[in-house]
């Protein structure tokens, strides 16, 4: 026996040990070691594909550019009028021809990626095509970063946030327990968290209830409503400053113990805020979040230090989520749901149970069948099959691959197909035994004859699986993955492994007991 110990059987033994050792963490669900992660369909969770409305990012970019234009001109004492913006351009008029050269130079230096065109003293500022493209891409990657940091801050276990394709975002959050939690998470993701501090147009605000949107626009104003009451405010459309200048946001409590959000502005923001409040004493300033007015306090004096408070009769959990959203920054562009799949934890557990039962039953059926049909040759095939299962688990564990419900189906299917190689080989061996060849010769030639068929068949199946992997999404990828790993592992176990075992035990094979060894009746003329 020792003499016939060969490299094949050694290789198979190593593969078997490797398979068992590395699949233990996954099978016992131990804390340490690399494990197979369960897909969302098996452990429960939320899977979403989000689209990004990047055109909104362009529009808000125009808005903040308009704010910059105003700030620059005010700072340099350039007199201007009729500063307006819409989704594709900013227009303004200069009143003094002497300012033209200075203004043009300033805008060129300060606002990159824009093109200025003039018609007399009327100017229009547009973004270049590259700048638009860049803004869109920025909006998407910013959304990915923002959503990721929001989910992380919320304290969720291992959420996945990734850009998919050109303009989609994949969000996967495992382990959500209730419908309420899921909704809260979705709201947290969706929150634009676009904070603006806006001046109330005190000259015209008394007429706000009768004013049309178009009329407000003609003054460079917008009409926004209060978050809790139907009260309307007429506000200057170009904000004093926005959430991009915010450095921190925390939940606090006011005098009457209501939750509020305190936020701090960065240096530049604090300066702008200080200057503005200094000029605007006696008038009101609105704190606007996602186009709702949360409060519009009167400015009593210049406010330095850059600390602002939002109060809006919040629930504590709402204030908590809002503070997270503000800290993680606003979404430049709103996101919307293109695809959503959510699975409750109990359904996932049921799926694991039923597919495991199917896997075990199918496995046992195949093993019994192989034993009855092929005798010891069937047992050898079964050893290879068990080795194959462990190898699949081990390889998936090492790569931290995700096991999905279709992935389970893939493993079940592999069990059926992996024994195929052994069926082909055993049939070939039987054929040669019937033809009167010796056992050793039959085994060697059997493997040689069977090899091309198994190889070609497996390669073509692999081609189909690869295409499925490349074009499949989510759970389907899992199916293609387990099937591919299964096929490749079966090449090692079913071909090399069983061949090695035959060579190893060849001296033990009793030529008189063909029924026991190969499941065939007496062979005529056998030596």
């Amino acid at each position: 026996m020792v003499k016939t110990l060969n490299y094949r059987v050694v290789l198979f033994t190593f593969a078997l040990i490797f398979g068992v050792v590395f699949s233990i963490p996954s099978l016992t669900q131990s804390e340490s070691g690399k494990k197979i992660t369960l897909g969302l369909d098996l452990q429960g969770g939320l899977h979403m594909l989000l689209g990004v409305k990047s055109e909104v990012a362009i529009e808000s970019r125009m808005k903040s550019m308009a704010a910059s234009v105003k700030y620059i001109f005010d700072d340099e004492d350039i007199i201007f009028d009729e500063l307006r913006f819409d989704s594709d351009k900013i227009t303004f008029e200069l009143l003094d021809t002497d300012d033209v050269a200075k203004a043009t130079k300033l805008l060129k230096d300060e606002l990159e990626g824009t093109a200025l065109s003039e018609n007399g003293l009327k100017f229009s500022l547009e973004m270049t095509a590259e700048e638009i493209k860049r803004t869109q891409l920025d909006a998407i990657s910013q959304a990915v970063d923002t959503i990721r940091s929001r989910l992380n801050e919320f304290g969720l276990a291992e959420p996945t946030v990734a850009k998919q394709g050109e303009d989609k975002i994949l969000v996967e959050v495992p382990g959500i327990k209730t419908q309420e939690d899921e909704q809260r998470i979705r709201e947290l993701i969706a929150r634009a968290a676009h904070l603006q501090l806006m001046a109330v147009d005190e000259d015209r605000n008394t007429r706000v209830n009768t004013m049309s949107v178009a009329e407000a626009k003609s003054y460079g104003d917008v009409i926004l409503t209060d978050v809790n009451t139907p009260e309307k405010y007429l506000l200057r459309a170009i904000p004093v400053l926005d959430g991009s200048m915010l450095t921190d946001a925390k939940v606090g409590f006011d005098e009457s113990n209501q939750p509020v959000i305190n936020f701090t502005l960065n240096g530049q923001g604090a300066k702008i805020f200080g200057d503005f409040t200094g000029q605007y004493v006696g008038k009101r300033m609105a704190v606007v979040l996602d186009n709702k007015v949360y409060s519009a306090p009167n400015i009593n004096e210049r406010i330095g230090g850059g600390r602002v408070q939002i109060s809006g009769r919040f629930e504590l959990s709402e204030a908590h989520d809002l503070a997270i959203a503000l800290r993680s920054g606003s979404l430049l562009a709103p996101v919307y749901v293109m695809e959503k799949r959510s699975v409750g934890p109990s359904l996932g557990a049921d799926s694991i149970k039923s597919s495991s039962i199917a896997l075990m039953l199918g496995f046992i059926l195949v093993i019994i069948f192989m034993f009855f049909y092929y005798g010891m040759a069937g047992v050898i095939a079964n050893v290879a099959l068990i080795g194959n299962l462990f190898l699949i688990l081990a390889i998936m564990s090492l790569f931290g691959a995700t096991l999905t419900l279709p992935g389970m189906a893939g493993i079940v299917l592999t069990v059926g197909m992996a024994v195929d190689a052994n069926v082909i080989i055993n049939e070939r061996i039987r054929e040669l035994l019937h033809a009167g060849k010796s056992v050793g010769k039959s085994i060697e030639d059997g493997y040689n004859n069977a090899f091309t068929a198994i190889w070609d068949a497996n390669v073509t199946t692999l081609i189909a699986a690869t295409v499925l992997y490349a074009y499949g999404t989510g759970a389907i990828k899992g199916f293609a993955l387990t099937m591919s790993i299964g096929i490749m592992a079966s090449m090692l176990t079913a071909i090399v492994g069983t061949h090695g075992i035959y060579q190893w035990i060849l001296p033990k094979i009793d030529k008189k007991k063909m029924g026991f060894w190969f499941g065939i009746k007496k062979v005529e003329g056998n030596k």
Partner: protein
Amino acid sequence: MEIFKYKKPLSLMSKSKRFGALSIVALILAFGLILTKGFNYGIDFAGGTLIQVQYEGKAPISNVRDVIATDKAYEGATVTFFGSEDEIVIKTKMSSQNLGEDVSDKVHTLLKDTQGFKEVRRVDMVGAKVGSELREQGLMAMVLAIIGILIYVSFRFEWRFAVAAVLALVHDVTIAMGMIVLVGIEVNLDILAALLTILGYSLNDTIIVFDRIREGIRTIKNPDLEGIINESVSRTLSRTTLTSLTTFFVVLTLFLFGGEIIHGFSFTLLVGVIVGTYSSIFVASPILLWLGFSVGGFREKEAAKLKREKEKEKMRAMYENGTL
């Protein structure tokens, strides 16, 4: 145990016309069904929302229908039992883009007070745009897989083998699709995966028969293709049937015990295993015959290839010996 003991070749090819007629009838029926009744696209491809709800005890299905009808978002929604009487599935063509409150949240508030309500177990929502994208991708995957297989088989065998294999594949997939339409299974991504698996599986079977034919062409003296095919198919009959049986067993357990969610998937595979086995025995090889495959020609080509290789080796040997 031996069930299929090879004694002499079965005269399969002489009956090939009969099987051909059978296949053509099945194909016409399948095509007819696909064209007239059409696929019942599930939400993956058509877009919409699917909500699975679990109840304690029997679900009050008519009550659920009434409650749901009160909300406009569920216009035209269907409510059916799912797997058992404790669970129902609500399907609607609507989908919402809104992250904050979506169709599933509404279902929760609507159904919360119905008798025995336990939980919303699963919500799948696919926007119409994603649905059509997935459909395109699915079709693309099919086509690419077939092209890949065509190239590989042409390379390893000969183009006629490749064409015959692919025609057999189209045969299997079409009939499986016909069955899907007939039974009214909802076509979702998992069904696409099942069809692609059939592609791989049926090909597996066909390749093994073709491999034997290729071997037969090299070793069997009589250059009569029909005889070679008969002998090769007969010799692989045992293997084809056995493997199909083992695969059939496991797919059957998957169908019976794998749970409601993979029912459609395992059903499609069951059909595929049966049709795939039939086609690799009775369809693929006769096509080879009809395509006018010539044994003599193949042998000449093989011989020429061998000769070229020999010559190359000779040249190399001469070169290495320094005689060139």
